[in-house]
């Protein structure tokens, strides 16, 4: 600890602001119903929580809301009301709908996947926030939802084939391909394979989904550890 300059909880008040918080964004309340809006925020907070019980808490919330059509419709309406650049908020709403696993979300997700992707806004897509990448992640997430619904008798084969055959983005074609494979519709898989072959993306059908342990890990000869001492690490919160 070469310099004792860590900030102190509740202290160091002598410095003035120079960063201006222009806005604190919240999920819009489209329900006009305090209880429903509260439930929405509770579910989303549970989704992004942490700690040893985080997943259990989230699962309990999802289990409680599963089958609540009024709530699922509220989530979808909220999704439409969130501004375009709020990618994290939009993703969380889509994931919540998917985790609720109700077929009434199927049409919405299919329509969402078909929406055109707005033009890239980032100047440096490698080190900036690539808006196309964010939009594609929303859609590959929605495709995962369609894959799950495919196993619950919501037939999303047409939209998945559209994506496999015509998307500008490898990530979307790949997601749709695996959604069809996982859905177990043999005819759809065969059609998808033909579409990929025709469009020069036949190699997508050869991608391997493997456990991370089987992927090539970092080359330890290239790591160059400098042995910076770890120091005393505090235990995680609540453990």
């Amino acid at each position, binding site marked *: 600890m070469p310099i004792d*300059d860590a900030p102190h909880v509740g202290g160091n008040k002598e410095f003035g602001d120079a960063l201006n918080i222009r806005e*604190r964004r919240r999920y819009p309340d489209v329900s006009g119903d305090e209880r429903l809006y509260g439930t929405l*925020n509770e579910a989303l*907070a549970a989704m992004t*929580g942490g*700690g040893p019980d985080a997943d259990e808490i989230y699962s309990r919330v999802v289990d409680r809301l599963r089958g609540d059509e009024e709530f699922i419709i509220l989530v979808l309406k909220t999704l439409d009301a969130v501004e375009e650049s709020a990618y994290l908020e939009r993703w969380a709403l889509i994931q919540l709908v998917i985790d609720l696993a109700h077929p009434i979300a199927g049409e919405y997700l299919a329509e969402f996947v078909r929406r055109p992707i707005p033009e890239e806004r980032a100047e440096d*897509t490698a080190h900036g926030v690539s808006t196309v990448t964010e939009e594609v992640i929303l859609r590959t997430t929605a495709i995962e939802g369609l894959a799950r619904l495919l196993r619950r008798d919501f037939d999303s084969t047409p939209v998945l084939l559209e994506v496999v055959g015509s998307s500008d983005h490898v990530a979307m074609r790949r997601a749709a391909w695996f959604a069809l494979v996982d859905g177990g519709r043999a005819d759809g898989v065969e059609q998808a394979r033909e579409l990929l072959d025709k469009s020069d993306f036949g190699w997508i059908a050869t991608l391997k989904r493997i456990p991370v342990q089987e992927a090539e890990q970092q080359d330890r000869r*290239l790591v160059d550890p400098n042995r910076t001492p770890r120091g005393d690490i505090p235990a995680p919160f609540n453990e």
Partner: protein
Amino acid sequence: MAICDATVPDKTATGDAFYGASICGQQYVDYFWYTYGFTGTGTTWQSGFGYEDCCNTDLPLARAFNGCYVLTYSAADYLNDDYAGACLNWARRYVREHIKTLSAKCDGPSGAVAQNPSGSGDIEVYSPFFYTKNAPGRAETLLHESRHGALFHNAKFPKGSTFGEGKDGADSNWAYNGAWMYGALYLWWYYAQGARTTSALRELARQRANVVIDGAFAEHPGYSV
């Protein structure tokens, strides 16, 4: 004196609501400050960046700490940071060993989230790091930038990449062991074995890992998560 404007996303979406409430303890502040390169850069975290209010998750410093928390504790056996193990375990060690300083600024070049100028290890993080990334995304960014101390991107994005076909900024392949490989590997492990988190956030890590694998390597690694 305001020097830049920021919009704080809904803190339930970014995970900052949880972390802000849970980890506001001097033991964590001290550990992150002295482990991840904040020390000596205090002036860059003043003037509204949160030095004077380090638990306020509207402000950059607390949000950076939240990323550090994820980086530090996302492996179930967080005390093991052997490079022979999972990326989830050694990522925090890699950052610790390769970051010299971690400074905050309003804006970086061309809207960058962060940069490691000339691979010096003097990493700078900018407004998008605090306000467009969730807490796990900030952890992954710290690893990505730390890796630039060894290797820069060396290729153009391939056909069908979401990052823009033909633009500079890709890694040639997985075996290059570049920043994209480290980031994707971290996200993949986070999806597979991330601890103290939810299935939903692990799913987001999977989605992002796949998009990186599909678009950030000139030669596709042949994997899918």
